[in-house]
């Protein structure tokens, strides 16, 4: 396992001008990002939707790379998105999965069969042409450039340390610096869209 923040620091070097949907990695990504107007840190509008949201973005903007940091809890809630992504096959879509084996924001309860699910195998079985799994940060660092250099869709499953929160939601420190409406508006402006 490795730390999400460490992984994102490495990823940042290879981000280029990709659109990033930081998903569950938002709290670490927002302070790191050098192009916030190309980010979509929408928080958690409804669990299970990050990958499909990012897939929609990728289909709408086929000339731009779209990178999402999904989580295993989100994906398990909507596994059916895997064949949809595989069928649509957006070449600009890069699906990173933060697998901490638990529901960290609710206190760390394990997801079903937490230690024995192979998400890269699931993705391949659903039709993704490429999928990877990393448990060591060094392996991730050695492969990230090559992964982003090839067309998608691709799934990259990563074992990350859980960052368990037990503080009541109302007392948790917010990491968002913009509300969702502003995030959407900023990204659309960056993409040259009006209205």
């Amino acid at each position, binding site marked *: 396992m490795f730390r999400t923040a460490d992984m994102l620091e490495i990823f940042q070097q290879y981000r280029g001008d990709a659109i990033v949907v930081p998903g569950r990695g938002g709290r670490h990504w927002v302070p790191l990002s050098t192009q916030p107007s190309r980010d979509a840190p929408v928080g958690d509008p*409804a669990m299970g939707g990050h990958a*499909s*949201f990012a897939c*929609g*973005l990728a*289909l709408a903007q086929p000339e731009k790379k779209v990178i999402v940091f999904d989580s295993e809890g989100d994906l398990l809630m909507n596994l059916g998105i895997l064949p*949809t992504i595989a*069928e649509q096959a957006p070449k600009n879509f890069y699906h990173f999965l933060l697998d901490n084996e638990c529901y960290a924001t609710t206190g760390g309860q394990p997801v079903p069969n937490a230690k024995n699910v192979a998400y890269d195998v699931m993705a391949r079985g659903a039709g993704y042409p490429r999928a990877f799994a990393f448990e060591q940060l060094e392996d991730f660092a050695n492969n990230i450039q090559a992964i982003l250099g090839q067309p998608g869709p691709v799934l990259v499953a990563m074992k990350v340390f859980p960052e368990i929160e037990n503080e009541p939601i109302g007392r948790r420190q917010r990491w968002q610096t913009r509300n969702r*409406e502003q995030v959407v508006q900023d*990204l659309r402006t960056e993409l040259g869209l009006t209205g």
Partner: protein
Amino acid sequence: MAEAQEAELSPEIVLEEMKKNGVTHVVWLPDSETNWLYLLMQAEPSLHLVPVSREGLAFSMAAGLFVGGKTPIILIQNTGLMESGDSLRGWGLGLNIPVVLMVGYRGWTRHGITQDTAATYTERFLHAFGINYYLVESSADAPRISVAFAEAKKTRRPVAVLVGDEYHGFNR
């Protein structure tokens, strides 16, 4: 004869409404009310079909398409709409997505009392989420689809079109 045709909802007319309103992507999960429309949509080069396997995914997918500059429409059944509540709340309403939902109104009837609880709860569900809706039963109602598009754009909210034509028209 003409009256009988008018009483049905023509999928050709629905497709024209989509094209007139600039729809680029149809995010959908098949239902009995819209089967005929599927064949027409497949043959229409200006439409990109995005099939999903659970209706809640349609809302997050449509949100991404809209944020990226496209004009999606969601095509699902009322049963799936009810399954999608949290996604409609978070991705549709939460991100101010101006999207039209064409919802197959399973169980809808003007005659007698419906025995299908899917119909019983459909409008109550939409009321609960504050989603405005328009009933479309026949081709004569089709202009309401454009009204829904205009309202979604103006209010930056999802707007529903309930397709109350289960037993003829699309399903012939």
